[in-house]
């Protein structure tokens, strides 16, 4: 049976939100399977409403379906109620597009965006009817693959994934399809699974964990090296050099039921060189590649007309940094063909300029505005290189209140390197000051403070830092709670420190973490991102059962000489660049944004022969963080910037 719908439809009346499983969205492709066609099941290991908006998955879905020799369908993790029913009925995991059993696909490709979804990955492989460990798989089983930000350290899942893709997927999915197509043409007989995996390992950006041996000395890794000749010692990430060549998704999926980010999304640039030291995305997606403004405009107006959405998000890691953002926003808001359109700008800088743009787009509905100063004191923000002065923040907040917003939301991290109680309490101080600023404009201004525990990530300057313990994070949150108990207008929210610990284990874990993830999964620990399913005690039980020490993995500082589990992978960044940036962090020294200043040779451009694609050679107006644009009234908090290791001539602002 290649279409499971007749059996599924009998189960759907008995599950919550059955529209998650029906497919049929506008933008759904019509994949045609056949002997010469490599079939991909692009799987998001969380629910439909979280996974559907994922742009990476949608981009690859279109690119693959445009090829005659490939067919791609989508899959999202079934919620626990449907999972119980399909297990009882002995039905396998299925695609949404044609309700085809997952095991009939050549590749099951997972999007790894968050560590807490790892148990869902194993669950989906198992629901597909495929052995969870790659070593146990038969020749005819689908290849299990993964892409996405978490694949920069895929080691905890190394025993479960057949291959892993690092970096931008646009080009490499085609190259992988070529390899698999040749194999499929021989009915998967010639050479066999191992040979195909070896061939895939020869494709730049593809990592095949089983082809590498890890050797240990005691607890420490001493070496990771290829098991076969011809397998690269270091796997480099893939980077597309020009976003203009990839105007995807062209037909964004319009869900029939409610999802997060339910709006048109247009990616305006990829990569970010603000250099925030805690931010993995900003490190691994370098350099900055802007989409031409004209293409943005076309994608926005075509997309709105096609989908019927009345909201568009211009997405990137810091959208106010897009060259000419004001004009693009103004054009979108006034595009007569699109009717009343609201524009969402996720990831905005904290300054008055930003609020100006926000005022332009949110003429109505001024309920809340969100900023992320990330740390409570200027000292702390220099450590993390998030160079927002207090003036920046206060101007932004005052601007927001004076222009009609009633609620301001502030995001912070706690547990950052060198953080003192003074830094933690600085968060409360900022919040109180924001309320005070607001009370001259609003009757009851409100500030929501959201605090997350910091998790060090691979390929960041903080990858050597020992994460704060759960007890320490709880103590810091307690400090803030006590301090804000009597503060009027301030609401404090925080991320569960126990979840932070588990994220930390997976974030910098090695292959020995695999059995821990499997242990948790085998005892029903799925949907760990969901608070009602997260089970800290089960994780700790699993660590103990596998003889592993959470302290050693999460809370231990690493030295520069230590072999890190991901050292055989590369995001282009030189280790000495990251180490120097770590030293600078400890010295509280900030680093400018290299998009408008000379190159530091971090390696992301020079290593791959690419460069920034930025339309404007100068920083956007009003920006101060990390750009060196010091305004006269800001002497008191002047940014301490140290130019260093500049390599060659300034990288040209290569307008595309």
């Amino acid at each position, binding site marked *: 049976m290649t279409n499971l*719908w*007749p059996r599924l*439809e*009998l189960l*759907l*009346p*008995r*599950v*919550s*939100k*059955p*529209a998650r*499983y*029906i*497919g*049929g969205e*506008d933008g759904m492709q019509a994949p045609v399977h056949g002997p010469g066609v490599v079939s991909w099941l692009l799987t998001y290991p969380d629910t439909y409403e979280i996974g559907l908006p994922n742009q990476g998955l949608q981009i690859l879905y279109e690119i693959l379906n445009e090829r005659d020799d490939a067919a791609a369908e989508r899959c999202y993790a079934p*919620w*626990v109620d449907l999972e119980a029913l399909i297990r009882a009925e002995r039905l396998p995991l299925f695609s949404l597009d044609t309700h085809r059993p997952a095991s009939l696909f050549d590749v099951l490709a997972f999007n790894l965006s*968050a560590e*807490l979804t790892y148990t869902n990955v194993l669950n989906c492989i198992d629901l597909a009817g495929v052995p969870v460990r790659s070593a146990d798989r038969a020749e005819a089983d689908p290849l299990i693959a993964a892409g996405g930000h978490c694949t920069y350290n895929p080691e905890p899942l190394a025993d479960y994934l057949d291959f892993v893709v690092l970096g931008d997927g646009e080009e490499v999915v085609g190259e992988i399809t070529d390899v698999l197509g040749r194999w499929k043409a021989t009915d998967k007989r010639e050479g066999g699974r191992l040979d195909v995996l070896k061939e895939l390992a020869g494709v730049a950006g593809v990592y095949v964990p089983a082809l590498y041996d890890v050797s240990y000395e005691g607890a420490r890794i001493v070496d990771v090296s290829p098991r076969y000749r011809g397998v690269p010692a270091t796997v480099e990430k893939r980077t597309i050099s020009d976003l203009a060549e990839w105007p995807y998704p062209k037909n964004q999926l319009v869900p*029939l*039921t*409610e999802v997060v980010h*339910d709006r048109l999304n247009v990616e305006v640039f990829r990569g970010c060189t603000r250099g925030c030291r805690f931010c993995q*995305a900003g490190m691994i997606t370098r350099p900055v590649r802007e989409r031409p403004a004209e293409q943005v405009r076309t994608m926005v107006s075509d997309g709105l*007309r*096609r*989908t*019927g*959405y*009345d909201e568009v998000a211009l997405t990137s890691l*810091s959208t106010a940094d897009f060259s000419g953002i004001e004009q693009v926003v103004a054009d979108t808001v006034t595009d007569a063909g699109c*009717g*009343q359109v609201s524009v*969402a700008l*996720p*990831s*905005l800088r904290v300054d008055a300029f*930003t609020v100006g743009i*926000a005022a332009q787009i*949110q003429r*109505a*509905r001024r309920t*809340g*505005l*969100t*900023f*992320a100063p990330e740390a409570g004191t200027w000292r702390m923000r220099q450590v993390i290189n998030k160079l927002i002065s207090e003036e920046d923040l206060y101007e932004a907040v005052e601007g927001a209140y004076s222009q009609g917003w009633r*609620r301001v939301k502030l995001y912070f*991290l706690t547990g950052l390197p060198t953080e003192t109680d003074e830094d933690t309490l600085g968060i409360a101080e900022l919040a109180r000051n924001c309320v005070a600023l607001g009370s001259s404009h609003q009757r009851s201004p409100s500030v929501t403070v959201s*605090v*997350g525990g910091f998790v060090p990530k691979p390929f960041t300057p903080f990858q050597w830092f020992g994460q704060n313990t759960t007890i320490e994070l709880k103590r810091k949150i307690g400090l803030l709670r006590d301090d804000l108990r009597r503060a009027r207008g301030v609401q404090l929210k925080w*991320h*569960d420190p126990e*979840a932070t610990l588990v994220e930390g284990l997976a974030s910098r874990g090695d292959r020995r973490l695999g059995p821990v993830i499997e242990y948790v999964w085998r005892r029903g620990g799925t949907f760990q*991102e*969901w*608070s*009602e399913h997260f089970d800290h005690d089960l994780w700790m039980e699993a660590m103990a059962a596998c003889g592993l020490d959470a302290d050693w993995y999460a809370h231990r500082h690493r030295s520069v000489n230590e072999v890190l589990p991901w050292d055989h992978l590369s995001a282009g960044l030189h280790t000495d660049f990251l180490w120097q940036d770590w030293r600078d962090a400890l010295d509280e020294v900030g680093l400018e944004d290299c998009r408008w200043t000379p190159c530091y040779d971090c390696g992301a451009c020079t290593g791959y022969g690419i460069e920034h694609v930025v339309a404007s050679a100068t920083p956007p107006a009003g920006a101060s963080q990390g750009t060196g644009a010091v305004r006269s009234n800001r002497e008191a908090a002047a940014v301490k910037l140290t130019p260093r290791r500049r390599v060659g001539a300034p990288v040209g602002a290569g307008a595309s």
Partner: protein
Amino acid sequence: MRLRVRFAKVGKIRFTSHRDVNRIWERALRRAGVPVAYSQGFTPRPRIAFGLALPTGYESDAEYLDIDLDDTEGASVTLAALPQTLTGATPTGMTVLAVARIDRAEPSLQQSVTSCTWGIDVGGIDAATVSAAATRALAADEIVVTRERKGRMVTDDIRPQLVSLDVSEPTADGVRLTAELGTQPRAVRPAELLAAFDPSPCELRVRRLHQWIRVESERREPLEAPLSATGRAVPAALAMNAKDHRDDRPTGRRCESLPPGQLASRKIRQIQPQFIGS
């Protein structure tokens, strides 16, 4: 100007909720370029109103919505072309059957609909047993059902709402019932009727066939849709245009009676980078 639209909702899309259908229509009207009037105020909403909510999982040949058009641009709308345009703008499984102009003074669908006719396919039971149960239900003075409402159990007598009940025809895997159920003061669901049967048959597939309003003691539909030969409300003019649902007919049937899962969930949100919004 106010328009009344009648549409069908069949096939996979029956699993979308009333709220989902609302969102689908807001987008469809924008895609079709229909100049909908917007409400005033801080958050302008398109002025569209739906009739009685269709329970998730049920199909329908008789869904309605009223649309207020913009006073100036609304005049340029060509009514005759609208069914086809709107069907093209809605997803597979939704077909617009009729569009007509109505008086703004007409009462809302929510207020005026008094009953609905349902086609109810049941299984796990033979025709004779269903017939006997139906006869008993019609003969009863009261039919008491218990349901949960805001966390408390309440009991209702639904007999006054049972207007008619026929055991019409055997189907491939059971029997089809046709029931007219009242909607005032609250709409009785086919599932409640079946639960009151003894023995209780298993609900396989349910389709709303008609909604009824009363105009001067005469029962009529809010908007007529010409009936096709099979009794399905598909106007000839639209038959070509109607999206095909044939591949979506149910096959092998089994009967179990688990209540729909009601798992409320809250997600641990990762701390995000800055964004603007509420």
